């Protein structure tokens, strides 16, 4: 479903060289690595917000390397969520559907469906100012999933949440991705979060993306846990 083929990306002085990995359809992959190693850069390249110097990015078997972001059918939730300050919650959910010229009744139906799925029906008329961290996260997820993308990219979606909300959103992510079958790439620093969510687990070290085996992942999870 997602394939990086020897992708080179330059971002200022920082450079990723010959990055290659693939994620199968419907899988939930987690990408880990220390701060400043290029995790967000990979996500931005995947959704077309950053140009790559060389290599190919394939989605659904198509070379999308030079495609504009809107044509890639990717739902993106950045770390700061980047909600639209002048929009209501409902307008966030409608936005991509309006751009795709869906019929008004289809839009209303989809918004109701999403709001129910994300438990934000009571928030639909609210402006985003004053929403809690968990509520904002749900709105950002709803906006990203509204047009039924085939790929979902999550940049540290749980990092700014308290423990209780984090568990809540973590469970929601698992349910959403299982129900929609969307292929997900999720960036995190948290090994426990990765263990709870990931079908596959990648690590970025020295500009290279490598997949961890199940044993390595369990080992890392143990060493990251407070008891360990």
């Amino acid at each position, binding site marked *: 479903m997602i394939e990086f083929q020897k992708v080179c990306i330059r971002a200022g002085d920082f450079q990723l060289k010959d990055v290659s990995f693939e994620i199968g359809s419907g899988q939930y992959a987690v990408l880990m690595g220390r701060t400043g190693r290029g995790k967000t850069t990979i996500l931005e390249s995947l959704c077309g917000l950053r140009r790559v110097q060389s290599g190919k990015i394939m989605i659904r078997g198509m070379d999308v390397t030079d495609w*504009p972001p*809107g044509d*890639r059918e990717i739902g*993106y939730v*950045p770390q700061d969520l980047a*909600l*639209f*300050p002048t929009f209501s919650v409902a307008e966030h959910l409608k936005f991509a559907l309006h*751009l795709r010229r869906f019929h008004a009744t289809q839009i209303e139906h989809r918004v109701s469906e999403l709001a129910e799925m994300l438990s934000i029906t009571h928030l639909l008329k609210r402006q985003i100012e004053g929403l809690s961290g968990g509520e904002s996260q749900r709105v950002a997820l709803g*906006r990203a999933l509204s047009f039924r993308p085939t790929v979902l990219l999550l940049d540290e979606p749980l990092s700014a949440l308290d423990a209780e909300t984090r568990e809540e959103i973590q469970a929601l992510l698992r349910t959403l991705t299982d129900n929609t079958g969307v292929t997900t790439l999720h960036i995190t620093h948290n090994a426990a979060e990765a263990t709870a969510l990931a079908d596959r687990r990648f690590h970025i070290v020295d500009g290279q993306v490598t997949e961890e085996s199940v044993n390595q992942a369990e080992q890392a999870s143990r060493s990251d846990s407070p008891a360990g």
Partner: protein
Amino acid sequence: MSGISSCFILLIVLLIAADLMFTSFEDFRAAVMKPEIQSAFRLTILSCTIAALLSIWVATPLGYLLSRYRFPGRLLIDTIVDIPIVLPPLVLGLSLLILFHLPFGNWELEAWLRDDVGFPVTYRWPAVILAQFSVSCAFAVRTMRVTFDQINPRAEDVARTLGCTRGQAFLQIALPQSWRGMIAATTIAWARALGEFGPILVFAGATRMRTEVLSTTVFLELSIGQLNAAVAVSLLMVAMAVVVLVVLRVLGTGLTS
């Protein structure tokens, strides 16, 4: 520190107080009832408004461009935009005059506008607007650039992943967030246009009832020894400037703090 700051504030207050004490209400009324001054007032309101609207129309996309994109020549454009701010006003007026009358072979901009388009500019009211626009637009661009610098570009990125073009992301996401900055930029442009004098004098002249605006009225009244009328018009301009500044503060954009 506070003593020096107080001195400056005191100076401004004293300047206005001196103007107020110099003239009486009767003098002020007599001055503003003069047909020449009323005509200058009307032209000032009209020209400042047109110059401010033109400025925001140009400044919004240009400010966005300078804030969001890195491209070859960006530094040069950034510098060119600032030139009217640092240029002596008379030089700007002189440059406008030369531009409109410089012959390119047999072709001259002013002659073409006058003879072929039927819209002469130099020493007429359009010259007033162009002179005001040349300076006020630079301030509007600066204000809009700061406005867009303060808006998170990530929201526009997300909008693009949702299906927006760059243009749609600007119009639907960035622009609605920039309304306070747009009002601030329009107000600043309007205030700058109000205070413009040098370029207008050189490029549009100071013909009574034709190209006279309030700033040139002060000059004309002074030149014929009508100090009371000059002070009255000055106070009128102070009042207009205060209204503009109050609007800015009320909007609370933080851009002028």
